């Protein structure tokens, strides 16, 4: 029986148990004088019985699926010939996978006779496992169902039991996210520690030169392998700064217009349109940036240079606009994060109580005075939160920068030059062939950790700001 069939069977069994529990609870209700004299409603008894049947069986299936590979492996390992047991870890893994392949009938004959018992053992164990699991699962289902059936008693309050199970389910779901985060942090952390064994941490943090290619031959040119993160940080900050320079004023003002001035009809059209902007895939923004905005900026720049050369403005004549520029990436990224700023700002501006507006109008303030002097200060924490969220988004953005800003790690604050960002370098380090013992590959993890710390710090600052300036309107 395949896993999916088994799951359907178990589910059907649980539903059956649910219905049985329901019937039984009505049965026990009769002698005690009706449902009102039961400690819980029939639905609760039924749910309890269904859950008793379902959860242990599911748990068994889950544990079995997780552990049967490891258990079978260790059993097979015991039957391997002695020579195999003395192999190194890597070679041993190779042998094990050959045994596995032979057991399912791929590429047999690569192993000699000595391995035959192991192959046979593996075959039979696999066979047993496949046959035993459904049987055991169904037995557990039935036992669970019976235990649940015993709980259907007039004086037993099934509501609390169901409540506890519900509670437990919620706790499990919420911890999944936490543990995943921990898992990611630790995996990045350990690889980063590997990296910092090869490259000193101060060189990483304070180095001004980024060139992760490591020479394979001693005489290879231009492959010094230096890992200074500063050019990447400057590039990231430059592009994010340009993006925020666009997104914050535009987003904020559109939020003010939408929440304070726009009629319901206009609002009904503009707000969804803004939210569509948030739904455009970043890769689409990326080629918009690379194919439309960047060449346009370059053309304008060239035009200005030629004009400057003709009219004798020396500083313009030397203007040089790269075809991939931080400006292009920043502008398009700014457009991309407008909806973040405007949507959150709109919400917080709407949340400012009407009584504050009334108070201001009542003193003879105009609409714009009310907005700038009362509503803005009141909504500021939320607006700052929105902006910092948009900033984290900008810092973490990759696709637009890959396509529009280039890969050259220039240490510059000139927005007309090509720059690169932390995320783009992570991508380029991990694309293509790589070996996991080289500093080049491990650098990606160090960069990831670095980025994680930056965005974490931003979020913490955002929370602190919001908390500090939060106004209590009761």
């Amino acid at each position, binding site marked *: 029986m395949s896993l999916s069939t088994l799951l359907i069977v178990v589910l059907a069994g649980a539903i059956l148990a649910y219905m049985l529990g329901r019937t039984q609870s009505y049965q026990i209700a009769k002698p005690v004088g009706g449902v009102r004299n039961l400690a819980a409603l029939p639905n609760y008894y039924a749910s309890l019985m269904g859950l008793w049947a379902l959860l242990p069986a599911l748990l068994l299936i889950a544990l079995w699926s997780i552990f049967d590979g490891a258990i079978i492996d260790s059993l097979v390992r015991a039957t391997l010939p002695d020579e195999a047991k003395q192999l190194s870890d890597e070679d041993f893994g190779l042998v094990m996978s050959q045994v596995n392949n032979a057991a399912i009938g791929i590429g047999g004959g690569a192993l000699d006779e000595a391995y035959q018992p192991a192959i046979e053992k593996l075959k039979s164990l696999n066979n047993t496992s496949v046959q035993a699991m459904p049987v055991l699962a169904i037995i557990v289902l039935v036992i669970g169902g019976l235990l649940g059936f015993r709980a259907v008693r007039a004086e037993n309050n099934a509501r609390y039991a169901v409540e506890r199970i519900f509670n437990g389910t919620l706790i499990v779901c919420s911890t999944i996210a936490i543990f995943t985060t921990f898992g990611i942090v630790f995996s990045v952390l350990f690889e980063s520690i590997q990296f910092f064994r090869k490259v000193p941490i101060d060189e990483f943090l304070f180095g001004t030169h980024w060139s992760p290619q490591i020479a394979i031959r001693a005489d290879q040119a231009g492959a010094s392998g230096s890992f200074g993160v500063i050019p990447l940080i400057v590039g990231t900050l430059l592009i994010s700064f340009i993006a925020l320079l666009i997104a914050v004023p535009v987003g904020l003002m559109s939020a003010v217009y939408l929440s304070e001035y726009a009629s319901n009809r206009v609002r009904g059209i503009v707000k969804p349109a803004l939210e569509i902007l948030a739904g455009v895939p970043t890769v689409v923004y990326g080629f918009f940036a690379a194919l439309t905005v960047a060449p346009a900026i370059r053309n304008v720049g060239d035009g200005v240079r030629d004009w400057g050369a003709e009219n004798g403005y020396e500083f313009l004549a030397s203007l040089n606009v790269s075809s991939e520029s931080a400006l292009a990436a920043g502008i398009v990224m700014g457009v991309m994060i407008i909806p973040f700023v405007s949507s959150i700002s709109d919400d917080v501006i709407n949340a400012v109580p009407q*009584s504050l507006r009334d108070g201001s*109008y*009542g003193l003879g*303030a105009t609409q714009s*005075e009310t907005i700038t002097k009362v509503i803005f200060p009141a909504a500021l924490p939320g607006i700052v939160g929105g902006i910092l969220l948009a900033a984290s988004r900008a810092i973490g953005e990759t696709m637009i920068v890959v396509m529009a800003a280039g890969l050259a790690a220039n240490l510059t604050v000139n927005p007309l030059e090509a720059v690169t960002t932390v995320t783009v370098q992570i991508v380029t380090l991990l694309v293509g062939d790589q070996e996991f013992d080289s500093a080049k590959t491990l650098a990606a993890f160090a960069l990831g950790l670095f980025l994680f710390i930056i965005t974490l710090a931003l979020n913490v600052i955002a929370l602190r700001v919001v908390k500090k300036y939060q*106004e*209590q309107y009761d």
Partner: protein
Amino acid sequence: MSEIAKETYQTVGEPLLKDPKMHVRNTNVFYGEKQAIFDVNLDIGKNQVISMIGPSGCGKSTFLRCLNRMNDTIDICRVTGQLMLDDLDIYNKKIDVVELRARVGMVFQKPNPFPKSIYENVAYGARIHGLTDNKVELDELVEKSLRRCGLWKEVKERLDEPATGLSGGQQQRLCIARAIAVNPEVILMDEPCSALDPIATATVEELIHELSENFTICIVTHSMQQAARVSQRTAYFHLGKLIEVNDTSAVFTNPKHKLTEEYITGRIG
């Protein structure tokens, strides 16, 4: 009360005065299709306190908000008739609403201090209307306004702290100080004590009494005792109609209309 709805109603008592501060003639207010105020005629005397009483939903707050066009902020609200502040036609399209609201200030039901410092709350109106030329004058104005509301002693040490940290009664007095800092001629108060405890209420009532020497005050209240304590005249509203207006003592001791009598004796409302 269907008989009232049909009646073309003539207000009982003395709605009209000689030389009033504000006068209101044949005023109707509509929310969309629904009419909220029916043909109200009322004069508001200079440097007097007039209180508006009546059961919930009788239109007394709506009427109050007509007097400084606060109803403009509600899209579907429409006002007809003639409302005058001295010689100024309040609903004339050409008048400056900002100037009108500077002359007719308002205090709301719930204290609504701005999320700023105590000082900035009081200085707000003066700043937007350019009432002072320098910091010294502004400081004086803030101090004077706070003193008149009896708040100066309580807050002078912490003018820079957020106004939201004050107690409810202090906040409401701050809102009154904020309103009088603009030096309006009329102050509208929409149930100014309904969110306050009895002690804070007493302080605010005393303040209203003192302010009536210099300001014309219209106060909407649910408390008949409060109306009796603070006002010289009382207007009774019922289902959007102005039923009876008279000197406060006359309304409470000798109501002329059956509905007024029923309300003040507690049989309706």
